[in-house]
């Protein structure tokens, strides 16, 4: 992509995003904290639905000291970066490690927990250390420290593939199913998670020297205020008490849970304005190949689901219209069921539940099957409506001429039905392509997944914006084409 087209790209995007940026700052307002709820024991829901955890307690203590209310909102891990940078939240917590990359565009308080990564697996599956993972598939959280470490060390340990999940629960489910052999993630969370699950075991500590901290917008006044509060809390022993509360023992004196340490220096050289944050050329160029790889997967998946859905849809429409009684009932049941079930639910059932009855799909196949089933049901209804819209006289004229059922369909009915169904079919194609993004939940590296990973790794939301533009670039022409067709057919020949 050349320089001038990048400028155009930025200007267009600016218009899109501008209204969503909040610039207002008000010290009286509550501090909004974004947290990836479910990240035990840092932030999760207790049985009453209340948000609890080490970091929840910590921000509440800070709120008391600063005399401001704390409001927690649930945001997935890889959404936290954009949330902080856009000002949607003031503080992000979720055992976020301080990294150089993140310091380029965001600020951190002093750390309050020293952590490493870990390898977790099912007891007795033959994996005892990282070296046993040669040519095996491993699981990580999209864009996490574990993801970054695994990506850097993929060659060294010869991992066959790194599969990226949207959190601990689905990743561990796949470890249990056996589709992935191990899960690389923060050690405290996994020690906590496995302690009451005897079949799961943390087999190796991976020393990465991670230090958890509060992540905030670059050089916001709140950073130093919160940092001071943390200093006070450490000196008063409050944070170590939290450690004891959540991990069952006090932390060692040498750790950042106890000792006051300097605040990490934010990279002062870069003052990030709006354009550098959301339309960062360097980040875009770096992550461009990842996005293209994602686009290829999205297109492959969309293409397969659309073609298979068309074939399915036609067969089911014909079965429902002309099949024997039992076949009609079965076709109707299929169409009704798969139009009612949310795609996301179906995806999760196919990917995570079917293995328990011996049907295990790869992420791509699971997504293709789910999309095809749903698209087939919608397509069937579209075809049925199209066929029924062809006048009865056309069937009779064709039959009276002695044409076979197949010829009647192929030569007379379907060519007329196609014209009627092209606009709704194209709409369905657009939906299928958009729905491929849901395949992120089954660890499939589609465009959205690649973009979220890229934005977490680069600590910058530009890849998400770029993904939005890519989706637009190939869906918008389809949308416009359908509108034109609809107008044309309405004026139409009949």
């Amino acid at each position, binding site marked *: 992509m050349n320089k001038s087209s990048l400028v155009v790209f930025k200007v267009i995007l600016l218009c899109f995003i501008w209204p969503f940026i909040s610039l207002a700052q008000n010290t009286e307002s509550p501090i909004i904290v974004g947290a990836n709820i479910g990240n035990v024991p840092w932030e999760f829901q207790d049985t009453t639905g209340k948000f609890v955890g080490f970091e929840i307690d910590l921000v509440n203590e800070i709120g008391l000291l600063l005399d401001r209310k704390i409001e927690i909102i649930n945001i997935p891990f890889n959404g936290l970066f954009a949330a902080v940078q856009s000002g949607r939240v003031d503080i992000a917590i979720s055992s976020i490690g301080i990294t150089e990359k993140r310091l380029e565009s965001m600020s951190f308080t002093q750390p309050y927990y020293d952590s490493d990564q870990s390898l977790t697996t099912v007891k007795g599956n033959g994996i005892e250390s990282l070296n046993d993972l040669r040519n095996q598939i491993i699981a990580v959280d999209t864009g996490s420290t574990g993801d970054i470490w695994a990506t850097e060390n993929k060659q060294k340990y010869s991992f066959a593939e790194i599969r990226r999940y949207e959190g601990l629960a689905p990743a561990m489910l796949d470890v249990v199913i056996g589709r992935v052999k191990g899960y690389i993630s923060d050690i405290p969370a996994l020690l906590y998670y496995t302690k009451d699950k005897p079949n799961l075991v943390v087999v190796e500590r991976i020393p990465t020297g991670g230090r958890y901290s509060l992540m905030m917008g670059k050089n916001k006044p709140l950073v130093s205020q919160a940092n001071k509060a943390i200093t006070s809390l450490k000196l008063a022993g409050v944070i170590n008490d939290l450690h004891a509360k959540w991990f069952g023992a006090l932390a060692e004196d040498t750790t950042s849970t106890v000792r006051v340490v300097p605040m990490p220096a934010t990279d002062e050289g870069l003052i990030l304005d709006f354009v550098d944050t959301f339309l960062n050329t360097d980040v875009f160029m770096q992550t461009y190949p990842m996005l293209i790889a994602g686009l290829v997967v999205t297109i492959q998946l969309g293409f397969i689901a659309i073609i298979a859905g068309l074939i399915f849809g036609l067969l089911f429409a014909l079965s429902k219209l002309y099949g024997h009684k039992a076949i009609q009932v079965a076709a109707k049941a299929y169409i009704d069921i798969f139009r009612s079930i949310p795609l996301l639910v179906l995806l999760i059932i196919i990917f995570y539940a079917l293995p328990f009855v011996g049907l295990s799909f790869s992420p791509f196949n699971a997504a293709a099957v789910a999309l095809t089933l749903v698209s087939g049901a919608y397509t069937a209804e579209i075809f049925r409506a199209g066929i029924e819209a062809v*006048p009865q*006289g*056309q069937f*009779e*004229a*064709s*039959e*009276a*001429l*002695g*044409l*076979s059922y197949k*010829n009647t369909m192929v*030569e*007379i009915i379907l*060519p*007329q039905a196609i*014209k009627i169904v092209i606009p709704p079919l194209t709409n369905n194609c657009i939906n299928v392509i958009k729905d491929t993004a849901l395949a992120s939940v089954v660890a499939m590296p589609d465009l959205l997944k690649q973009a979220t990973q890229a934005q977490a790794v680069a600590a910058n939301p530009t890849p998400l914006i770029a993904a939005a533009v890519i989706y637009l670039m190939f869906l918008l022409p389809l949308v416009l084409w359908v509108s034109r067709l609809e107008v044309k057919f309405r004026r139409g*020949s*009949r």
Partner: protein
Amino acid sequence: MTALIKLENVTKHYGTFQALSKINLDVKEGEVVCVIGPSGSGKSTLIRCINLLEEYDLSGKIIVDQILVQKGKNLKNVRAQVGMVFQSFNLFPHLTILKNVMLAPIKAKGLSAQVAEKIAVDLLNKVGILEQAEKYPAQLSGGQQQRVAIARALAMEPKALLFDEPTSALDPEMVGEVLDVIKNLATTGVTMIVVTHEMGFAKQVADRVIFMDAGQIVEQGSPIEIFNTPKEVRTQNFLKAVLNH
């Protein structure tokens, strides 16, 4: 000479409603039969049973050219022998006039495209539509469309033709051109059953006129017998109504 089309005891129910009641009818090869009668009397149902667009009750029998008309692999032979022309033309709107006529010979008879085209051109010429061969049905007038529909039926070289009120959907000024085509056909020796409200036409072309009412054949005979000396009261009343109209 045996009958080309033979109906024996044909009854037809739509659910519990009896649309045809014990119809017996023989139509000889080359015969032109016109069917008249009030609306709802079962005229359409009668001819639609002959090519099994409607299924008739199992108690009866229809035989066309020695073949029993029923579902199954013989049905396509029956339909190849019996062409049909509909009140609403039912041309295929996505095909040109020429393709409308060529389709069945190619798909149902397995003729080559060249042979089928030759047949189609001949027939379109005969019904006077050859100049419009490359147009689509929607571009033609009703009368022209119905003439194409006749050519389309003839392209299968059927032994018999069934017409279901072929001029009822036409503007009055176009009725003549279609009736002229049918009159010409009548002289070529093709067997025809024509449901019609055009009494003058029936009088002129029919070898035999059948009057139907309430799903039954009430009376039949030569045009002179039916139109000049109808025996049944129902026939008399019907004719009085339509001729004074």
